[in-house]
C-alpha cells in the first residue's frame, strides 16, 4: 500500500505528469490544458476529453519568456510561457482558462501566437457570487459546452454532464475525507504529500484517480506520516503553488502544515456541486462561484473560512506565501491580516517565486514565524 501511495504522490511530478495525457491521446482522445481553478473541468470530461492542469517549468531560467513578458508579471505565467516556448506543452490539443486576473486574460495573446494548441478559450467568470452572476455564469458555461462539443465532435447532454459531475464530486469527497484525517495530532500525510495527491487529481483521468484514492483511504486511516514536527500546526495559504517541495520546505523548517488554503489544494475541491439542481450548468456555476479565491471580492467570507479551518484543523497560525505579482492576493492581504488579527490568529506573509528559490531566506523568515507561534503556544 505504501508503494501505491508513493505512486500517487509522485503522479504530478515533472517526470510522470504527462503519462496519462499521452495514454489518453494514444487512445485517439483529446487532452485539454486547464490553466486555473475557475474552469469547469466537468464539461471537458463529459465530452470524453481529459482536462489536464497546466504547470510551468520548475527551472529558474525563463529568459525566452521574458522577451515577450513585461516586468512585474505573474511568475507562474512566465514559467508557463517558457514551457510553451520550449515545446513542453505542444502535446495539448486545447487550452482553456478563465479571467482569473488581468495577467491571465492577456496571457491568451502569447498562447495564441506562440503555441501549437488548436483551441484557446477564455471562459468569463464573474468576480462575485449572487443570483444574477450565477445565472450569467451558467449561460457562459452553456456557451463553453457548445465550444467543447464542436471541438471534441461530441454531444454533451444533461446526462453526460451529470455523470461527469458525479465523477468529479466523488473525487472531491474522497479528497475531503483525506483532509479530514489531517485534523489528527499526527496526520496520515504530510502537507507536501497532501498537495501532491491533490495535484495528481488534476493530471490523471478522474475516475482512475478516484479508484486509487478510494483504495488508499483505509490504509491512510491507519498510517502515520513521517514528519519531523507535529507542532506548531500551520495553515498554509497561497495560490499557483504546484511544487510540493515548497510545502516540504515549510515543514522541514519546523512545523506541520495541517491545512491549506490554496487553489492547488483545498480550494480546488472543497465545494461540491448541488447534484439535485435541475440545470447542471447552473449547479456548476453555483459551485465555481463559491471558490473563495482572492479574485472573488467576498474577502470577508474568505477570511471567515480561514478562521473556521483554523478551529477545525487546530492550527496555530496562517502562513501566506504570495507568489510575486499575484495581485488579487497581494491586494487582499492587509484586510485578511486585519480580520485574522481581530480573531486572534497569527498571520505572516512572504513573497515567493514560482520556482523553488530563495530557500535560505524563506527558511529564516518562516523559522522566525514558527518561533513566535511556539512561544505563543508555550505562553
Amino acid at each position, binding site marked *: 500500500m505504501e508503494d501505491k501511495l508513493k505512486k500517487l504522490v509522485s503522479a504530478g511530478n515533472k517526470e510522470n505528469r504527462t503519462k496519462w495525457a499521452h495514454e489518453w491521446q494514444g487512445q485517439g482522445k483529446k487532452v485539454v490544458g486547464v490553466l486555473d481553478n475557475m474552469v469547469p473541468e466537468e464539461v471537458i470530461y463529459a465530452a470524453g476529453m481529459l482536462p489536464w492542469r497546466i504547470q510551468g517549468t520548475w527551472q529558474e531560467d525563463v529568459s525566452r519568456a521574458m*522577451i*515577450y*513578458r*513585461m*516586468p*512585474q*508579471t505573474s511568475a507562474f505565467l512566465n514559467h508557463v510561457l517558457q514551457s510553451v516556448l520550449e515545446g513542453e506543452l505542444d502535446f495539448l490539443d486545447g487550452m482553456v482558462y478563465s*479571467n482569473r*486576473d*488581468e*495577467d491571465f*486574460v*492577456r*496571457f*491568451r*495573446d502569447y498562447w*495564441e*501566437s506562440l503555441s501549437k494548441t488548436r483551441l484557446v478559450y*477564455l471562459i*468569463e467568470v*464573474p*468576480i*462575485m457570487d*449572487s443570483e*444574477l*452572476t450565477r445565472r*450569467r455564469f451558467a449561460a457562459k458555461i452553456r456557451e463553453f459546452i457548445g465550444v467543447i462539443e464542436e471541438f471534441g465532435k461530441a454531444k454533451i447532454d444533461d446526462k453526460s454532464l451529470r455523470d461527469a459531475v458525479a465523477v468529479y464530486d466523488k473525487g472531491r469527497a474522497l479528497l475531503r475525507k483525506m483532509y479530514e484525517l489531517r485534523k489528527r495530532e499526527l496526520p496520515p500525510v504530510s502537507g507536501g504529500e497532501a498537495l501532491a495527491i491533490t495535484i495528481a487529481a488534476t493530471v490523471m483521468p478522474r475516475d482512475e484517480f478516484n479508484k486509487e484514492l478510494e483504495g488508499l483511504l483505509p490504509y491512510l486511516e491507519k498510517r502515520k506520516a513521517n514528519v519531523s514536527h507535529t507542532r506548531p500546526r500551520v495553515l498554509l495559504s497561497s495560490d499557483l503553488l504546484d511544487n510540493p517541495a515548497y510545502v516540504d520546505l515549510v515543514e522541514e523548517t519546523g512545523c506541520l502544515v495541517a491545512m491549506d488554503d490554496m487553489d492547488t489544494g483545498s480550494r480546488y475541491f472543497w465545494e461540491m456541486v448541488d447534484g439535485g439542481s435541475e440545470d447542471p450548468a447552473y449547479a456548476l456555476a453555483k459551485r465555481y462561484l463559491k471558490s473563495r479565491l482572492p*479574485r472573488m*471580492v467576498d*474577502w470577508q467570507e474568505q477570511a471567515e473560512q480561514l478562521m473556521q479551518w483554523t478551529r477545525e484543523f487546530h492550527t496555530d497560525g496562517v502562513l501566506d506565501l504570495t507568489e*510575486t*505579482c499575484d*495581485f*488579487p492576493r*497581494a*491586494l*487582499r*492581504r*492587509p*484586510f485578511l*491580516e486585519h480580520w485574522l488579527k481581530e480573531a486572534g490568529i497569527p498571520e505572516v506573509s512572504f513573497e515567493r517565486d514560482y520556482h523553488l528559490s530563495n530557500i535560505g531566506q524563506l527558511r529564516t523568515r518562516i523559522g522566525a514565524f514558527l518561533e513566535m507561534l511556539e512561544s505563543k503556544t508555550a505562553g
Partner: protein
Amino acid sequence: MNLLEKLVERNERRLKKIDENPDPTKLWSNRLGYEIDRDHYRELLEAWQQGKPLLPWFPSAILARAMGALHMQLETFVDQFPEESPRYYQAVRSMGLPENVCDTMVLAVAAVKLGDLPAPSLISLCPRVPCRLWIYYMKILAEYFNVPQFEIDPPHEYSEESIKYLAGQLGELIEFAERNVPGIKYDQDRHLELLEAEGAWFGYANKEWELRKRIPLPVDSRDTFRQPFRRGPDLIDDTAKLLEFWRQRTEEIEERAARGVGREERLRVLWIWGRPVYADPMNVLEPRGVSVPAVVLPPTATFGGKFPISDDGKELGRQFSPLEHEASNWLSQDMLQRPRRGGHGWAEDIIWVCQDLKCDAIVYYQVVGCLHMGSPAKLVADMAERELGVPTLILAGREMEATFLPIPEFESRLAEFIDMVLAQKGRG
C-alpha cells in the same frame, strides 16, 4: 493644502498667466478649458466640504451627476503631483499594499487615506474599464472607509443581452445608492440632458480627431499629452459652458488646419498607454521635429480622442432607455471587448490608428503593474513592423516616479530611437 485646493490654485495661476501674457502660439480656447478645470476642482472641493456624495471611479461619470453626486477620477488628480509620490509610497507601504501594481491607482488610494483627496460616499465595484485590478482598488477604498459597496458584473461583448444585463445592474445600483447614500436621487431628465451633451462632446472630439490627421499637426503635441479629450460634461454643472469650450476649440483647430499652422514635422509618433509624468517626452521630441497626434490612454480607451458613438438602439430596432444607452456606450468601448478579441484585436486597432493618423513610429510605454495595457506591447510591435514597417520603442516604467526608468535613461533611449528612425527615413 489638499490636492483639490492645489489644483484650483494651479488653474487660477494658469488663467492669470494667460490673461497677463497671452501666448499667440497656443490655442485661445485653452483659457476656457482651464476655467472648466478650475470650476471642476472647485465644485469637488465644495462638495467635499459640504458632505455631498462623491463617487470615485463610477461606472458612468454623467450618471453620477444625474444622481446628484459628483464623480472623481482620482488617478487623474494624483498624477499631476509626481513630487508627492515618495510620501504616497510610504503610505502604501504602511497600509500593507503591494508596490508593484500600477502606481497612479495605488497612490490615489494612498492620497485618499492621507486626506489629500476626499473619501468616497459609495463604491461601485466595477469601473468603466476592463482592467479587473481597478475593482480591487475600489474594494480597498470601500473596506478602508467602510462605505456601502455595490457589485457590478460587467460583460465583455457587445450584444443586446449584454446591454440588458448591464442596464439592469445600473438600475439596481441607482436604487442601492438612493437607499444607502444621503443626497443621492436619480433624475432621468437630467440624465437625458447629459447624454445629449455627451453625444455633442463625442462629435466635437471626433471632429478634432479628423483634424489631427493634417500635416502639420494643427495642435501642439504637448496639448496631446494633456488629453484635452477628457473634458466631458461630467466635469462641471454648466453643460453649456463645457460645450462652448468644445465649439471654440474645434473651430480654432479647424481654422489653424485650414491655414496650415503648426510646427514643421519630420516624424509622427503614436504614443501608447502610459507616460512618465515625472519627465517630459517633448524635451526629446520637440527639438527633433517630432509630433504626437494621439496618446492612446485608458481609462477612456478612445484611441486618444476618437469616441464610439452609440446608435441609440437603431441597430436593434428600438430606442434605448437612458440606462441602456449608458450600457451601450460602456460596451462600445473597444477595450472592454479585448478579453474576447485578445491582444491581436488591440494590435489591429493600433495599426488602424497608426494608418489613420499617418504615424511613422510608435512609442509603447508599459506602465509597470498595468498588465492589461502593457502585456500586448510586443504583439503590437511585431504587427506594426510586419504590416506597416513601423518601428516601435517599448519602454517600461512607472508613471509617477523614476525607479524603473530614470529620466536620463528615458531621454537617452527615446532620443536614440527617434534618431534611428529619422536616419532610416533619410530625414536625419
